[in-house]
């Protein structure tokens, strides 16, 4: 059995890079160090594979690509969506295609941490890499985030347990605060758990800011006693290096980017007293990278439209859900994502009426209803590539096994070449 060490897990934004994988007869037989989600990702990677198909009939990859090209060339306004579970290399190609055909392009962040980007537009963000958390952070706050279930090794590798350069005692050298609307496995590990009334994080964050500036409050805010908030503020001020991890409990609840803006403002203001950073708990393993590529190629992190020949940015207008709800697109290219399973019902209903091209190694609700399915090699198992961890650290994910299918990058490259070839003939 072949032992492959320091494998990078292509599942969540933790991008753990210490996983051990055992390979025999071209299949993964064992996994060590990964969390339960990561283990299952590696061990079951050959299950539920998609097949090349057109209108539900199995076909060859070449024919599926040809059909995709026909659709993309004929339609007036294509939406390209997904991107968060593929490599930087594929994301770059997806943008090249969007620019070429004047498409709208959006990534999964628009239904996840998109509001974090909107808040950063307003305030900026003091942030740090996860190794800084390990080495320096003596107070960590998880706000609207449940790492033990969603980012299972986060506590262990980065934020709570590890002994760092200046936090030599590990867990005992750190105070863990969890703020959430309900108790979770993550909050049970906390030194302090603060339960906020659903939808009132904004008020609680701004109460902290108000008190930081010397304001006096009494009673309670958002279901939390003011004394509790006062002691939280004292803890924050007494930290040498504090970090707030923000999750979808802030970004996707009432207030959305206002909540994040309040959290960022609090952290920025705390920096006049001591050091505080904010890190977004990004979900998919390369959702961070999708934002990075969009930013360096278009200047914007999501929801970009190329129909005028240059990138225009308008979340709420060019974001995937909104384009679908308003029936503004006539075909959808989905790359490594499952919008049929995740989008609001109205958006899904309209999506189902459109020709969908799905590029995905795995079967999903989206591939099941897609007009064209193009299976690809799984990034991080069957093909290599770069991914960006939740803190923006780029890591090279590995190829462990061979695949009979091309990579996402290769498929997109072939589509681009064919479309360009047609242009030249015309």
């Amino acid at each position: 059995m072949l032992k492959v060490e320091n494998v990078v897990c292509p599942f969540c934004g933790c991008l753990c890079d210490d996983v051990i994988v055992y390979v025999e007869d071209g299949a993964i037989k064992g996994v060590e160090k990964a969390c339960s989600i990561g283990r299952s990702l590696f061990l079951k990677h050959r299950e539920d594979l998609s097949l090349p198909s057109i209108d539900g009939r199995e076909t060859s990859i070449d024919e599926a690509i040809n059909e995709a090209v026909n659709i993309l060339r004929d339609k007036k306004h294509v939406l390209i969506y997904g991107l968060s579970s593929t490599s930087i290399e594929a994301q770059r190609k997806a943008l090249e295609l969007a620019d070429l055909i004047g498409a709208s392009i959006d990534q999964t962040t628009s239904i996840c941490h998109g509001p974090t980007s909107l808040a950063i537009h307003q305030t900026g963000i003091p942030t740090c890499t996860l190794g800084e958390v390990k080495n320096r952070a003596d107070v960590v706050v998880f706000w609207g985030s449940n790492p033990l279930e969603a980012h299972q090794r986060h506590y262990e590798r980065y934020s709570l347990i590890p002994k760092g350069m200046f936090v030599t005692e590990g867990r005992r050298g750190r105070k863990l605060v969890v703020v959430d609307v309900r108790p979770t496995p993550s909050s049970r590990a906390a030194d302090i758990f603060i339960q906020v009334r659903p939808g009132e994080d904004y008020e609680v964050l701004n109460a902290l800011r108000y008190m930081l500036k010397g304001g006096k409050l009494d009673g309670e805010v958002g279901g939390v006693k003011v004394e509790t908030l006062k002691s939280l503020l004292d803890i924050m001020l007494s930290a040498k290096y504090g970090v707030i991890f923000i999750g979808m409990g802030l970004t996707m609840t009432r207030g959305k980017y206002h909540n994040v803006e309040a959290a960022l403002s609090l952290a920025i203001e705390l920096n006049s007293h001591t050091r505080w950073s904010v890190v977004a708990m990004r979900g998919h393993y390369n959702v961070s990278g999708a934002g990075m590529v969009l930013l360096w190629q278009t200047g914007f992190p999501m929801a970009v439209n190329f129909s005028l020949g240059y990138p225009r940015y308008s979340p709420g207008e060019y974001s995937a859900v909104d384009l679908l709800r308003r029936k503004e697109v006539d075909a959808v290219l989905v790359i490594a994502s499952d919008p049929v399973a995740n989008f609001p019902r109205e958006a899904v209903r309209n999506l189902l009426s459109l020709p969908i091209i799905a590029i995905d190694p795995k079967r999903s609700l989206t591939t099941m209803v897609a007009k064209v399915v193009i299976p690809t090699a799984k990034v991080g198992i069957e093909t290599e590539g770069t991914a960006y961890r939740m803190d923006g650290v780029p890591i090279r994910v590995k190829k462990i096994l061979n695949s009979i299918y091309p990579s996402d990058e290769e498929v997109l490259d072939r589509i681009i070449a064919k479309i360009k070839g047609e242009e030249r003939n015309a």
Partner: protein
Amino acid sequence: MPNDSLIIKGGIVYDPLNGVKGSIKDIYVKDGKIVEDLSEEAAEVIDVTGMIVAPANVDIHSHIAGPKVNSARLMRPEDHLRDPLRRKNGLRSGCGFSVPTTFVTAYRYLLLGYGTVMDPAVPPLKARHALEELEDTPVLDKGIYILMGNNNILYYLLKKGDKKSAKLFAAWLLKSAGGYAIKVVNPGGTESFKWGKIFNSLSDDTIWGIKPKVVVDILNEVACEFKLPHPVHLHTYNIGIPGSYKAALDTINAFKDNRLHLAHLQYFCYGGDSWATFRSESVKVVEALSNYENITADMGQVIFVDTTTMTADTPWEFTLHKLAGGRWSNSDVELETGSGIVPYRYRMDNLVNSVQWAVGLEIALLLGPWRVFLTTDHPNGGPFYFYPEVIKWLTSADARKEMIEKIHPKAKKRIYLHNIDREFSLYEMITMLSAAPAKALGLKEKGHLGAGADADIAIYKPKGSVAETLSRVEYLIKDGRVVVRHGEIVDASYIGRIIRVDTGVDDSALSNEVRELFDKFYSVTFSNYKVEDVYFKREVVKRVV
């Protein structure tokens, strides 16, 4: 297919490194290089009679790619909205202004006659990010400088007194991250800010108990012993504040025996003891530098424009955030460095900004084109595509006079610029843009048109003034390919090179102790830290001893 042989016929050639000063001669190109001679039958002949032929320009210091540039893009959507660029002629669309997209960065540099641009501040942990953006910055040759002045492992080894390990580590780090030069930013200062402290000094103890001078000395030794083509690229302490000239003098005095490059020197030439008494002290800095040919600098010229400041000098960005108000981003990178970002508008009616504007021009005009190179520390002083404005001021005393009338009325008493008559000639300007920075970078194949040089050639149509002439190329040849023809980009399909240094220091040279520090304190494993070869699709490796 591009023609692999070219004859550039009948141009007026300026080639400062070879002493050619406006002679009419033909330039021969074969397989991407300049050659002595070529027969006409096999080559494409480009008739450039009456045009200026010069080496393509080289930017020694421009923040065009990587984590902090992208963070700035995220923080400033409004910056892009006012400067969109359409997709055309096979070129990619994008946006410009202070933090332009990668393709737009390349296109605008090409039209200004550039062939090589160096990004001066990359944290090794995020080097892949910078390299990926540079892959999307086509045609240009590019390199990155690796931030080392606040590296915890380096400080740890120096504290132990283990200079040998410290030097090997620095040389290994430069190679592992794919860097071209060692960059130092406010040594000790970025680390101190992680503790909430502002630290600015070369001779005081940092929180590690090591003096910053000791760190820079060691890195100078690395540059020297490994014969790095470019010396330590130093952004010293006290940037941007009244009295910063003292830091410049202190720095020059501390390292006068070494080769050294002082980054964006303009920001370190201020006198006064408060913002109210802010004035130029460029003359004192120029005097101190005049005896030391071994020290070069770049301008860091300020433009009156709304721009974005970004630097690894995190305490300075925090200070600027408090001064300017508004948005602030900061990113601390484990064991290595950090970066800060603040949007900033330089105003003509602001006394401090007016003095800053004059200082950049003063140092350039007083020290001359072989010592100080044109930069705006893009985008810190303003976007690089304002270089033609700077060229106008450097080549015309009248243009400067006109500006001095427009800036803050009290500025005149605090600057020297109105007393300087010098006007750079076309030859001097070409020196400053190409020959001199190529020489300072140790890029022997760049910045000249002699046989064996890379065929990176900028060709300009003479216009009314030097600045107008140099504001846009008529042709740009890159590695023998015609990239710009008749003033338009015709071929940007080619990704350009990454230029990096191989110090020859491999993993085996690192002590077990360093490996242990890695395992304990980084959040990535050692084997996933180093930049893989796949990032260097086309490259030039400078092998040094």
